[in-house]
């Protein structure tokens, strides 16, 4: 999305979602992954808004939906292109907005001509009349419609194209830069926004300033008093491949359980094992820490001073409630010490010093001081000066990029791995409300075992019948990369031919031993949402195929 309109961030605020006329939620199991955002969606419905859920699974949010488009996994682009097709063909798009605020409309119109509802329906499995009705409803709510999406859209090998097809729709509907109307990626982890804001990216310095853009590097060189590397760096995915080739030899990992959270566990583990020296800084002895040469004990959030930035670009203060346990130290404290040993000269002692240096260098954050955060509460970037109130929604008078929004014609790309007779079932992965990510935190909360006791492979009742599986039966799920044992849960949440698993119980079930290491070629986001698997009974009986 950054390519088309500027920055990849929620354009609206969370609270605004309650005030929309139409909400289109794609690839987001909001009640489980972002429960508190789902409250705003439910409220919108109670206020009379339409809620359209696009998801292969019959997720809980569909109970509130006015329409559920049960799409085949990985076929979002044809669907969104068909929405665009209908809006253009029937003249329902926001002409004035498109003329004033965008470029590339003619190319898009020509491109999506091909994506008739009937054609898209064949690929995505949504009936053509539902596609037409949805496009009309979205157009009717022009200027008051918000789209929300999460990893169900981005965790595909065509993830960035998925996002572009969604942004196309947003611009056609005139839904960028307005109150209660926009396009909103809901961010997964507590501070994923802040980590990216801070410049912990191979291409960007703090505040999304491109390292390869003229003048940017020079500005930071002057501020930091040091020459900086000119060439962009490599992503995690590339780095792991380079490890296996011996080109990356040292790795410093802060607070991440790479082995469990990344796709194709066997590959991630082999990559790390191939390096010469690993430092892991974490609060627990994770599977990744076990591979390290040096383990540094870090303080938890409850012992740390600083800020998190949430999904709506809001910077909020994190304050220590207790002292770090044992000899553990905060990440800031450890890094200041490490940097001193590497001869980085800087006059920084506290989180507040670090923040002040960062905001001076990152214009989107310049106006946000700790004093203001303490007094006013969280502030949303961009906030260029201390008298600026912060920005509730992006792209108000012009696109954040400063230039018109650019329509991106994109085509359907099927998931990298398709099913065949040997691996006939699609595995899609995701979250459950009472467990979080790799389970290092929720796994340690007392009584949470009562809510979701273990990993489960959620399977459709018809498929279970055909495979002669019973509820709770432990089976082997195998992909081309590995296999795990897991109990079966029969539920009509899962569509025919698809099973669902999370990755929160790595001690018993390392789901990411199964997942594919295909990734989006622009963002290098892994394809967690689709890989081909087989289910075998534990007694060795190879099951019949579930495909039709």
């Amino acid at each position, binding site marked *: 999305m950054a390519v088309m309109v500027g920055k990849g961030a929620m354009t609206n605020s969370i609270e605004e979602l309650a005030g929309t006329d139409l909400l289109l939620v794609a690839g987001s199991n909001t009640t489980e992954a972002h429960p508190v955002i789902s409250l705003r969606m439910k409220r919108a419905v109670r206020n009379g808004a339409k809620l359209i859920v696009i998801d292969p699974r019959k997720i809980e949010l569909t109970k509130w939906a006015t329409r559920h488009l049960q799409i085949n996994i990985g076929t979002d682009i044809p669907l969104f292109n068909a929405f665009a097709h209908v809006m253009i063909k029937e003249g329902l798009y926001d002409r004035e907005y498109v003329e004033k605020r965008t470029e590339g409309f003619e190319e898009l119109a020509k491109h999506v001509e091909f994506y008739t509802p009937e054609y898209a329906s064949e690929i995505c499995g949504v009936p053509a009349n539902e596609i037409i009705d949805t496009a009309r409803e979205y157009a009717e709510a022009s200027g008051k419609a918000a789209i929300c999406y999460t990893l169900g859209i981005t965790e595909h090998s065509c993830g960035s194209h998925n996002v572009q097809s969604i942004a196309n729709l947003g611009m056609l509907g005139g839904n960028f830069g307005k109150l209660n109307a926009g396009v909103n990626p809901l961010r997964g982890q507590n501070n994923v926004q802040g*980590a990216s804001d801070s410049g912990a990216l191979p291409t960007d310095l703090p505040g999304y300033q491109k390292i390869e853009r003229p003048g940017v590097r020079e500005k930071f060189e002057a501020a930091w008093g040091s020459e900086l*590397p000119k060439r962009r760096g*490599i992503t995690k995915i590339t780095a792991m491949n380079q490890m296996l080739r011996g080109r990356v030899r040292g790795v*410093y990992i802060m607070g991440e359980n*790479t082995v469990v959270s990344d796709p194709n566990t066997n590959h991630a583990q082999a990559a790390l094992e191939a390096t010469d020296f690993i430092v892991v800084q974490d609060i627990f002895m994770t599977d990744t820490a076990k591979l390290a040469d040096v*383990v540094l004990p870090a303080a938890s959030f409850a012992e740390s001073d600083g800020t998190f930035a949430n999904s709506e670009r809001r910077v909020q203060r994190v304050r220590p409630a207790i002292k770090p346990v044992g000899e553990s130290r905060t990440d800031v404290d450890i890094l200041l010490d490490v940097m001193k040993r590497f001869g980085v000269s800087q006059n920084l002692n506290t989180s507040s010093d670090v923040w002040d240096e960062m905001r001076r260098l990152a214009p989107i954050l310049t106006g946000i001081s700790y004093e203001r955060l303490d007094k006013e509460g969280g502030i949303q970037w961009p906030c260029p000066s201390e008298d600026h109130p912060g920005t509730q929604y992006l792209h108000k008078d012009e696109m954040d990029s400063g230039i018109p929004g650019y329509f991106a014609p994109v085509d359907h790309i099927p998931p990298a791995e398709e099913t065949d007779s040997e691996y006939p079932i699609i595995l899609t992965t995701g979250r459950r409300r009472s467990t979080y990510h790799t389970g290092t935190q929720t796994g340690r909360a007392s009584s949470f075992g009562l809510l979701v006791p273990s990993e489960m492979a959620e399977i459709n009742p018809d498929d279970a019948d055909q495979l002669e599986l019973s509820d709770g039966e432990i089976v082997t799920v195998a992909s081309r990369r590995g296999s795990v044992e897991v109990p079966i849960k029969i539920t009509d949440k899962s569509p025919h031919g698809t099973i669902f698993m999370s990755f929160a119980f790595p001690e018993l079930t390392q789901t990411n031993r199964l997942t594919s290491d295909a990734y989006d070629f622009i963002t290098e986001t*892994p394809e967690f949402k689709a890989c081909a698997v087989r289910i075998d009974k534990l007694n060795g009986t190879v099951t019949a195929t579930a495909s039709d």
Partner: protein
Amino acid sequence: MTTEIKRKLNVEVNGITIECAAQARVLDAINEAGFDVPTLCYDERTGPQGTCRMCLVEVEVEGKTQQVAACTAFASDGMQVATHSDEIVDYRKTILELLLSETSSPTACPKCISFKKCELHDAAEQYDAKWDAFPSLVAREKPKDPNPFIQRDYDYCISCFRCTNICNDWEQAGAITVHGRGQENSIASFFNNDLLQSPCTFCGQCINTCPTGALTDKKIVGKTKAEDLKRTKTICPYCGVGCGIHLLSENGQLKGTEPDFDAPSRGSLCVKGQFASWEFVKSEERLKYPLIKKNGAFERASWDEALDLMTKRFTEIREESGPDSIVCWSSARSVTEANYLMQKFSRVGIGTNNIDNCSRT
């Protein structure tokens, strides 16, 4: 936030004139003027009910005086409001004494003992309302509920229905409802099942809106002393919504979590934020000192040993294979300041742009 304010009203509260929005309620005007009336059934998120009658005030409009519930009545231009006339104060005291007669002793209130003075007993103190002013009503039967999260003690329930409103209207979980009528009423899950068998998601919102000791956090009730509890305003460590929380600590030990009602999240939390945001911090499995791997096994090390070894090895690798042979991976779990330092370390300390975070996973 979306409503357009068309015009302002002038309202006088206890002699102070303030300006408020056209659709303001009398309660908004009272709060705006800086006065406080007890509101035992009111939660701003689900709106007014007007059932507890504690916010009754005297209003005078065009020479006519009447008593209204401040939470339900709309303000009007030129209205005069008296919040603490003798008659009103007396009236509130009587209502409080009637409510108290339905409850167990204030000295045993689980919320007052373990968390903070509950709204009911706070109001009782303010208005000098006596627990035994009226004959005590028979205590209700305690529901047997094995759920490990929410303690239900109906001896303190005053039937304000904040919990059922928050569950049905705000969360839309529909886990609890009012069971029975009149004096016999109680809050129950459908068919009187325990909560684990209900649609309850254990978001804990009922606990946090409850104005009495009827609903409390079972994980910590009885294990903390309200007067020793310290509250630290911070942010939930789980997802990207960033709900505001208060961490509860006692003598340097974490004890639990409460939502921060002043944060943009307006007091909302899910089961993770409410019940799983602090125990992992206290886990015995926390790493407590640096470790260095020697012959395949970790050995305890000092910080100097660990950081010296790190400096030595990274420096050697950089000299042998260049700065781009090292990568730094930052954390979406850690504070932004640490992420900033990590990228600066990578670029200035090591000399590589090979810095990434886990935003892709």
